[in-house]
């Protein structure tokens, strides 16, 4: 079974400080990992993904995430937070070699990031 855990419902950070949003996953075999962001009254927007290769992936709006296989983690990071980064962030996973062919992503419950001016 595939699952994603986002241990923090809420993360507060001061503007200009680095931010981290945590994500751990459970999947059979190697994973495909994703981060999405949701602004109020909007759908989810793709931020970045890990498929293969370099463990550090860079995405939109200056975000990056590091795949750590031993810790089964894929934490989202940004060196300097902006007030406009305040949103709901979702981590998602899909097992490599998913034989159902459904391409189903399993989402975490989300972390609300608030950047304080």
């Amino acid at each position, binding site marked *: 079974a595939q699952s994603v855990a986002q241990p923090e*419902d809420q993360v507060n950070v001061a503007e200009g400080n680095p931010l981290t949003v945590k994500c751990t996953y459970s999947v059979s075999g190697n994973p495909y990992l*994703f981060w999405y962001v949701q602004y109020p009254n*909007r*759908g989810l927007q*793709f931020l970045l993904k890990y498929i293969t290769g370099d463990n550090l992936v860079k995405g939109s709006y200056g975000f990056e995430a590091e795949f750590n296989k031993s810790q089964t983690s894929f934490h989202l990071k940004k060196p300097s937070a902006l007030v406009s980064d305040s949103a709901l962030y979702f981590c998602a996973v899909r097992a490599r070699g998913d034989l159902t062919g459904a391409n189903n992503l399993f989402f975490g419950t989300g972390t609300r990031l608030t950047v304080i001016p």
Partner: protein
Amino acid sequence: IAGITQAPTSQILAAGRRMTLRCTQDMRHNAMYWYRQDLGLGLRLIHYSNTAGTTGKGEVPDGYSVSRANTDDFPLTLASAVPSQTSVYFCASSDSYQSPSRANYGYTFGSGTRLTVV
């Protein structure tokens, strides 16, 4: 249209009534999905479709049905709405279910339908 269009944006529905949420995409994505988003539960998959003419059940399919008559449209029907179906519903699509190395691999989401069943 650019991306995914969902309609209606919001709806208040009497319990027991039938309701169809519409979803249309113009990206020619072969796979489409319906999720519901509930506080504290994140997104849960209701139904999916790999290609036109095929559908499958997700994590929470009970009380919902879907059809995929063509590539672009993927309507979600609540045959007899109940209050527990009060939620925000998101339609999504992806360009391939077998090529994650593609640049656009991942999901594109609609803006959602907020449904209240009373």
